[in-house]
């Protein structure tokens, strides 16, 4: 746990705690940036809450990033970088996924911009997004084998 006392005062955290305390699995604060670690099951409800709640209004999804922590388990990390335009505030959501068959619900219905981000992560990491309308490779050719951004994929490429 890397929770520090001043995080308890953070209004975003307080609102999430008031809505559903178990949604927050962990809290990380580093260089002024706040990350909420959430479990796979709570991700979609939390995302919908963050968008629909008037006081939070995290309607803008800046980016979705995948990280491969091989050989540590849970192997994959997905980071959702959120922005509230009306309040000029930011937040990050993090989900950890197992290396064996990583699957997670797609958030395209919450933030339509997630469409291409999720496709790119599927392309480069091999993480599958359930409910994604069009999950196929985009940067690499359709018949490419392997997931290059995984740590066990060589930098020089398949040779």
């Amino acid at each position, binding site marked *: 746990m890397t929770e520090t006392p001043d995080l308890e005062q953070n209004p975003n955290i307080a609102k999430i705690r008031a809505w559903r305390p178990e949604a927050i699995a962990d809290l990380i604060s*580093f260089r002024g*940036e706040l990350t909420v670690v959430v479990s796979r099951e709570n991700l979609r409800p939390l995302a919908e809450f963050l968008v629909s709640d008037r006081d939070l209004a995290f309607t803008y999804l800046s980016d979705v990033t995948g990280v491969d922590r091989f050989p540590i388990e849970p192997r994959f990390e997905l980071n959702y970088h959120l922005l509230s335009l009306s309040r000029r505030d930011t937040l990050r959501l993090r989900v950890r996924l197992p290396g064996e068959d990583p699957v997670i619900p797609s958030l395209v219905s919450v933030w339509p911009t997630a469409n291409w981000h999720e496709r*790119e992560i599927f392309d480069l990491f091999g993480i599958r997004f359930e409910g994604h309308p069009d999950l196929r490779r985009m*940067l690499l050719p359709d018949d490419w084998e392997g997931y290059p951004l995984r740590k066990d*994929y060589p930098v020089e490429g398949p040779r």
Partner: protein
Amino acid sequence: MTTVQTATGLEQTMVLNMGPQHPSTHGVLRVLLELDGEIIIKADVDIGYLHTGIEKTAEALTYSQAITITDRMDYLAPLSNNLVYCLAVEKLLGLEVPKRAQYIRVLLTELTRIASHLVWLGTHAIDLGAMSVFLYCFREREEILKIFELVSGQRMMTSYFRIGGLALEPPAIWTDAVKKIVRTFPSCFDEYEELLTKNRIWIGRTQGVGVLSAEDAIAMGVSGPSLRGSGVDYDVRKYFPYSSYDEFDFQVPVRSEGDCYARYQCRVAEMRESLKIVRQALDKIPPEGPIKADAPGIVPPQREKMKTEMEALIYHFKIFTEGFAPPPGEVYQRIESPRGELACFLVSDGSPHPYRMKIRAPSFVNLQALQKMVVGHLVADAIASIGTLDIVLGEIDR
């Protein structure tokens, strides 16, 4: 192949392949247009022709070495890419950059913005048939590239910003070149506006074309002038100021119509605002002062010191052989590039190599909106819509 009932009674649609080799797709972009006659029903965008694995490559380089590969993503605004990466590493380290270096960074980044918008204006206009604008814009851009060459030795892929400041002290005469630009460019911008802004053909090709509502733009994650043309005033320089931008006085142009003409007006107004910032930066930059932070294990020592002092030599050796290791953690640093919100998500595991460097490219996200913008329009309007989004395939594909 879908079938659709059309007004003339025909039942089949046609899929037209546009690109990847095409003069108006601004790079290697492939768009599969499903047409009913000449009206687009569906557009499927195929990217990846310029994918070079930059993010994977960065994991094998040290933090300083990785600056050189950031140039080539958004190759029309290389200094913006340098800036976002250097700011991310400096945030990770908690490193403070001297004010003089910050002001010079602002000046050069705004010149980059003007250079990038000049390319956009020239290529967008030539796509729609206004060929002389292209030549004039590139003539002006030449002056800016000469300044980049003067300070860094390189016209485009400068890699001029370093962790902690700048690479080199700019030569004393560079301010004269910048002052000349500040003096001559306003009338050049007036010249472009005279050719286009009230031109009936230009208005006919851009007004009402590629309309994007504010709700759609926010939902699709669009940023930059493409978002501000739809009425949302999100500009990272104002929302989350970086590199002393809060000390500068400038406006952020916003229009509400959401069509190509609105985005054109936004970008031309932005060029003028950038020139204002350049003028203010010229006054702010002190004639002398440090251009690099004083951080012995991270910022390389000056060459004279390295050749005479033992500690400096050891620091130099360690920095260039094994590199420096920031504390473990993650940062997300955003800046306002000419195309929108450019961000670098940097993950450090305590080793001298970036564990994960993700670049959030504004063109990648903005291009998603294309699929919505062209539906119901003609093929020629698709050209206008691609141009108005101001995409660069280098940062889309990375």
